[in-house]
Every structure is written in C-alpha cells, then in structure tokens.
C-alpha cells in the first residue's frame, strides 16, 4: 500500500509545537485491516491521529486520508470516523440523540435508521435513551464509536479506545473492531499497552519520542522486542561460580557482581531464559531469582528507536 491508494498515508511528516518536536519525519501507508499505533504516553500518537483526522496541520510533509489531503478539507469526514480520547460528549444528550445528530450532520438520507444500526453495532440499545451523562466510561466510549461509524466510513481512527474499559468491555470492543476490519475498513487505533495491540492488530506502528521506531507485522516486531539485548539480575547460592559459568556461554556479553547480586548482560532474551537453568545446574548452583531489569515498555521503545 503506497501513495494515493493507501487509506492512510503519512509522507515524511513532522509536527512541532514551538521548539518541541512532537512527530519527527514519520512515513507510513496503511490499507484495510487493523493497525495498532503503539507507544508510551507522550510519544506523539494523538498528534499523528489528529493530523490524520485533519485537526492538526503537519509542520512538514503530507498527510493523506483516502487519497485526499486531510488538513482544511472537511469533505474527508465522509470517509473518516474519529473516536477521540477525550470523553467529551454533551451530557444532556441521550446516546441516541448524539448518534442521530452525527447522522444528520453527515447528511444521511435516513438518520434515525442509521443511528439505530450504529447503536446496535456497539451493543448500546438498552441504554440508548438515557442521557450520556449517566453512562459509564465504557458506554461513553461506545457511544462515541457509534457516532463515528454512523456513516459507515471506510476509515476509522480511534485514540486509546480501551482506556477505562473493564475486561468484558475490552473483549466486546475487540470483537467489534475485528468485525469492522473484516468488512474491509482501515482501522488505526492508538494504545500504550502492548497486549492490547497484540490481541487486536494485524499490523503495528511503534512510536517513541515522535519517531517511528518500527512498523510492520506484529510477530516480527514482537521478535525484535524480545530478541534485543537484555540485562538480568540473578540471585543464587554461589553468584561467583555462576558468573564464571555464564561467561562460557556465547549469548552472554558480560557479568557483574555487585551489591550482593549478579548482573548478566545477554544478547537475546529467549536464548538466555532457555539456557539459564541448565547452566546453573551444570555449575552445581541453586537459582533463587532471575529477573529482567529493563523490561519496561519504555526501554523496549528506546531500543527499537536506537536500532534504526
């Protein structure tokens, strides 16, 4: 998927606020299917989604949605539905009134029927005639989705759609987005939670500090994430002997004995975790604890960025 045929395309896009660079020279092109925009908070995910939704002007580069320039072009909203992260919906409107308003603003021929269909899609019929102000966070998220898909757009953008949802609501949302993708839609959703993206997305874009750290198939990126160099802390019955045994392993870069425990730097996660018990047994040492020290998502993202 490239160029004007892509549903969503960023071509060397940057966006800065004064001296702060929020998005830095990012390019990608997406077609139908579900893509997860993964990154820690403040990485630039919302900025990218807002540029795709025509709500922010790119400082440099080109942002296209369905082949059209997104900025200053309200016509793209026939093709796009945006579910913003902020919950803001007028509290006095009923869910149905909110979705019907969206349908009328889209100039649909039968707004009432379109709204009823969208409300059924997000499974909100039971509370559709209650004021949005009385909704739970999950219900509000769903009513916003109903409003965004009432005109059945081929492209759907969702900013942190799982925030505030309980596990059951998450499952329902995953099923909902899956069925919409199966119907041929291009769906891009942002998340800072790896497992959410893993469960839902076909493709993945990893954003860190405004840069595209990785893009492509989820399994490939998962492998990159797990196969990167890791540091483990190890406690055992004889740290010194274990350190010597580890140093004979090709996957181990170095060991360090300090503060009463052993630190081991390894080339890749899986190889070490598979070998550690065998090596300890061979050295006649009992293992008490093996823990990765830098497995935060932040360090994973930093690694992916520096790798490029």
């Amino acid at each position, binding site marked *: 998927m490239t160029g004007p045929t892509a549903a969503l395309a960023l071509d060397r896009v940057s966006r800065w606020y004064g001296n702060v660079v929020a998005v830095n020279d990012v390019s990608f092109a997406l077609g139908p299917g579900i893509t997860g925009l993964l990154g820690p908070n403040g990485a630039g995910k919302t900025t990218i989604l807002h540029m795709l939704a025509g*709500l922010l*002007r790119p400082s440099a580069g080109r942002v296209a949605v369905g082949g059209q320039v997104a900025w200053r072009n*309200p016509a793209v909203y026939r093709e796009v539905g945006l579910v913003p992260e*902020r919950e803001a919906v*007028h509290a006095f409107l009923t869910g149905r009134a909110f979705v019907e308003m969206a349908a009328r603003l889209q100039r649909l021929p039968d707004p009432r029927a379109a709204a009823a269909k969208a409300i059924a899609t997000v499974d909100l019929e039971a509370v559709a005639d209650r004021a949005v102000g009385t909704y739970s966070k999950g219900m509000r998220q769903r009513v916003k989705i109903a409003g965004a898909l009432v005109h059945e757009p081929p492209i759907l953008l969702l900013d942190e759609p799982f925030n505030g949802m309980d596990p059951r609501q998450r499952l329902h949302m995953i099923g909902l987005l899956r069925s919409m993708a199966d119907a041929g839609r291009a769906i891009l959703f942002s998340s800072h939670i790896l497992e959410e993206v893993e469960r839902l997305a076909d493709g993945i874009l990893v954003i860190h500090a405004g840069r595209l750290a990785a893009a492509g198939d989820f399994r490939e990126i998962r492998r990159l994430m797990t196969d990167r160099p890791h540091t483990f802390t190890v406690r055992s019955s004889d740290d010194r002997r274990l350190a010597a045994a580890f140093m004979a392993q090709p996957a181990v870069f170095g060991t360090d004995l300090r503060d009463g425990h052993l630190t081991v730097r390894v080339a890749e996660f899986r190889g070490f975790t598979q070998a550690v018990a065998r090596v300890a047994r061979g050295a006649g040492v009992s293992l008490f604890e093996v823990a990765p020290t830098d497995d935060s998502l932040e360090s994973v993202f930093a690694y992916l960025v520096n790798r490029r």
Partner: protein
Amino acid sequence: MTAFVEIAMVTLRAMLGRRRTLLMLLLAAIPIVVGLLIRANGRPGPVDVGAVLDGIVIRVVLPLVALVFGTAALGSELEDGTAVHILTKPIRRSTIVLAKVAVAGSLTAAMLVPSTLLAGVLIARPGSDPIPATTAIAVGVLVGSLLYAAIFVTLSIVTSRGLLLGLGYALIWEGILAGLLPGSQVFSVREYVRGIAETLEPSSIESIVGSSAIAYAAIALVATSVIASLRLAVYEVRGSD
C-alpha cells in the same frame, strides 16, 4: 440548513442548561431594577430615557451578556472537547460559525430586548409616550446583540482567553476609548447601536455615525463572521501528547 439547525439546537440546549443563563438573567434585570428605583423615587426631575438606557444597557449590560454567551457558544466547546464531534463532520466551517453566532446573539437579544423595553417604559416621564424611543433603542440592542455575539465567537476561536480579552475590549474600547478618540466611533458597536436607534427615532438618542450605523453594523457582522469561519477552518485541536 439541517446542519445549521442541528448545531443551533444543541448549542441552545448546552447554553440554557447552565448556571450562567441564570446569572445573565440577573444581569439583564439590572435595567428593570433601575427603572423601578427611578419610578419608586417619584422621578425627581425629567429623566432622559435614551441617556439612562445608553449608560446601563448599551454601555455595560449588552456587551457583558453578549461576551458571556458569545465566548460560551463555541469557545467552551473547543475547550472541553465537545466541538470535535462537530468539527469532524463534512460541514462548512461558516455554517458552524453562523449557528453559534445566531444562538449567542438570539439569547442575548431575548434577554435584553424585553429588558430594554420594560426599563424604557418605567423610566419615561409621566404623560410622555416612551414607546417610539424605547422601541428604537431596543432594535439597536437587537442588532448589537448579534454583532457583539459575532465578535466574541470570533475571539473565542482566535484565543483560549476569549473571555478575558473580550472583557478588556468591552470595558476599555467600547466603554471608554471609543467615546474619547475622534473618528474611533466608526469602529464602535456601541456607536452603531446608538446610530440605529437615532435613525429609527431621532429623539431617542444622539449618535455620531447616524444612519451610516446600519451599513457599518452590516459590514462588521459579515466581516467578523468571515474571519471567524476562516479561523475555524485552521483551528488546531491539541491532544494530550
């Protein structure tokens, strides 16, 4: 047209549901209270209806009420994020602006036109017919409501400090400077309101711009609405990152 009505109805409900409407009703009641006080004190001397309504309604209450409604109509929705649901629809930005101006202006007028009429009748000398002068001023207030609303809606798009800057403009420019600087009246809404009233009923109030006020007000209304639409077209929604 559907989009205009749709946006106007939701805006109206959002505005009426707030405590601010009650506060604005109290503000709009001030001219009536003044009228009652004048009447209760037995009107010691001849009171000039035009001067009293100018001093209270045109100079103070009208810009303040329009400021609150004008900055709330769109500005508060841009602030709290509810505007995103309207901005991400295939509708002309001018439709959004006109709907917001219409609601803010109509609400301001709905409060201040009756208040002006009632206060005028209360203030008038016994035996005199206050209706022509008061009606003329009320028509000026009606036009002024729409124009102020357009200015404050525009201000709320241009800056997130619309209420503060608008207050400064209303009090300093309209309240003081525009009356002092020669030639500045051409750029004063207060002067347009007075000019319209004078054109309709020469005895109601004196103005400097006279009947040109109608043309000035029309130009100002169109110009501010165009500026607001252009600014809304490039309005940027800032996210959390």
